[in-house]
């Protein structure tokens, strides 16, 4: 096992797939010569050359649209959208075109493509550079949605996304890029649609995604000291959703908490809560509790951003207050 940062795991995952399959190409803004504004794609241009690793003009709809046309005609493109907030700029291509093309032509054309993007808070970049928009994408039939929380999952899930026959939206978390973790040596390919139980407890189940996963784990450690034993589930993928693990782990404790960066209304936690209420209502010992950002645009100032996104303290306090 090698220790990689989350950002190094991105390049490692892309390189693994480009080496394996020459149909895999990579395009985006500042991804080649600069190695990505978050330095997630360093070395790929040198390794694979300017034909397969391509800097493009600044045009999100053209990047995503070109990836779509290339996928429809036989390549397996990876497109980078620098900040997930810019999905707004290319939303027609994502939600109306890529998501629906296979369906509208009755499966005659496949769209094996990945759109990678930097999502989430922690950089003090404000409402148009730090949002978490995985719930936007989750709402559109035809797309798959992945959001890893650690370097091993970045590499393994990215590889799985590239090999998947359907379009996958791959949310990397800006706040996690510098974090380190063990990544299996050699070829590493994970499975989409599988959650991971990171910690087994007996009193409450906390479900989290991406940067909220380490916070949920820290909260669980603190709660343990207070006599509350928590299971922590890393969802890893919203579409497909590992409903089985979610329900099994909820039923074991009878209490469910979701921790997300999405604003409250129609965040992914709302969908999780609905599923559990429908499928496991009589196994619950109390209300499902969503821990979310309030329904506000994300502010930039340190103090304000820190108070908007769920913190370890907020998770601990919420569970302590409601779990009894």
């Amino acid at each position: 096992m090698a220790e990689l940062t989350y950002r190094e795991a991105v390049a490692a995952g892309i390189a693994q797939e480009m080496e394996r399959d020459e149909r895999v190409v990579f395009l985006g803004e500042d991804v080649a010569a600069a190695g990505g504004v978050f330095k997630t794609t360093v070395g790929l241009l040198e390794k694979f050359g300017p034909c397969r690793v391509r800097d493009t003009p600044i045009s999100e709809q053209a990047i995503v649209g070109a990836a779509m046309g290339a996928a429809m005609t036989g390549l397996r493109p990876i497109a980078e959208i620098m900040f997930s907030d810019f999905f707004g700029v290319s939303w027609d291509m994502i939600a109306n075109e890529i998501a629906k093309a296979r369906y509208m032509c009755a499966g005659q054309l496949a769209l094996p493509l990945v759109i990678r993007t930097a999502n989430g808070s922690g950089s003090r970049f404000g409402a148009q550079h730090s949002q978490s928009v995985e719930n936007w994408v989750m709402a559109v039939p035809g797309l798959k949605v992945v959001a890893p929380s650690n370097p091993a999952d970045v590499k393994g899930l990215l590889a799985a996304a590239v090999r998947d026959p359907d379009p996958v939206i791959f949310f990397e978390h800006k706040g996690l890029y510098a974090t380190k973790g063990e990544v299996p040596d050699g070829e590493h390919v994970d499975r989409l649609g599988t959650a991971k139980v990171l910690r087994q407890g007996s009193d409450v189940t906390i479900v989290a995604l991406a940067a909220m996963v380490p916070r949920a784990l820290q909260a669980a450690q603190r709660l343990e000291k207070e006599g509350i034993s928590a299971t922590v589930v890393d969802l890893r993928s919203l579409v497909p959703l590992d409903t089985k693990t979610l329900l099994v782990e909820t039923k074991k404790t009878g209490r469910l908490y979701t921790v997300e960066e999405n604003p409250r209304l129609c965040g992914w936690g709302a969908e999780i809560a609905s599923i559990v209420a429908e499928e496991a209502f009589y196994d619950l010992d109390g209300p499902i509790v969503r821990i979310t950002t309030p329904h506000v645009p994300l502010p930039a100032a340190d103090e304000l951003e820190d108070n908007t996104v769920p913190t370890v303290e907020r998770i601990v306090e919420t569970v302590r207050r409601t779990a009894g």
Partner: protein
Amino acid sequence: MQPLHKLETPPLPREILLRIYREMVRLRTLDERMMTLQRQGRVGFYGACTGQEAATLASAIALEKSDWIFPALREGGAMLLRGFPLVPYLCQIFGNAGDETKGRQMPSHMASKSVHQVSWSSCIGTQLPQAVGAAMAAKIKGDRTVVAAYLGDGATSEGDFHVALNFAGVFKAPVVFICQNNHWAISVPSSKQTASESIAIKAQAYGFGGVKVDGNDAVAVHAAVKQAVDKARSGGGPTLVECETYRIGAHSSSDDPTRYRDEREVEQWRKRDPLDLLRGRLQSWGIWSAREEDELRAKVLEEVNAAIAEAEKKPEPPRESLFEDVYSVLPWSLREQREELLASPPAGKTSQ
């Protein structure tokens, strides 16, 4: 090349000219019949190509089989020209079980991989960046494919037009943009769509050539598009071809142009009907006769009517099919939703 207005001999092989003309007559006949069926309530929506047959068909015939078409609203006929059978084409319009795309798209949004034509997107202009991506892919793969990206004059106001042309120029993609400037984007005339002196001139800003042709003259359209396609195929990059034509009918079956358009303008353009223009040329070259014209019209009408009769016999698409093709493999979540739906009474015609 001989000046187009006084071509004394055919500039193209006889069989190509006749094929274009026959397809134009078939498309005109088909459009007339479909608009009638729409008025009779047998078809929900239709967008006719009437008046634009030369721009559609004489351009598409300049492509090779392996080339791709990313169409706009009025290029469905290109599929027929490229060998797609009429009955499933009509079934797409009826949205029935004979539709290869399973009733998923609204009428006039047909597609088939078999003839390398994707579905038009109802969101204007979005096919253009996709077409550029397909062209970039061809270049990466090192194959000879050229991509034809069709658009209307209205689409030139969309951001996607500009980003697509910019990408195409920067990456020297083997793509030909074919703009059918039919002067009206629903009710907005081209004079209110752009302040540029032409659409073709816009290509200059993106570093490649634009050419404006008489879009009602099949020979002129073919010459311009063929030149652009050859250039793209030989590595010369993109071209924007503006075909100046006219939408003789309504934008679609949902539109009434008498509310915003002077009928005298339409009459002027009727005098320049692309079928009349090509037929005049064919006759002047001695390769088409009045008898052949009568025979063709009768044959095409019979073919279209027979195809309509056959297509209309097909049943509705089965409701369980609506879950297929969202993903490559039906996920368990959709399987559950399918079971849930099938357990409830069917909606629609069959339940009434």
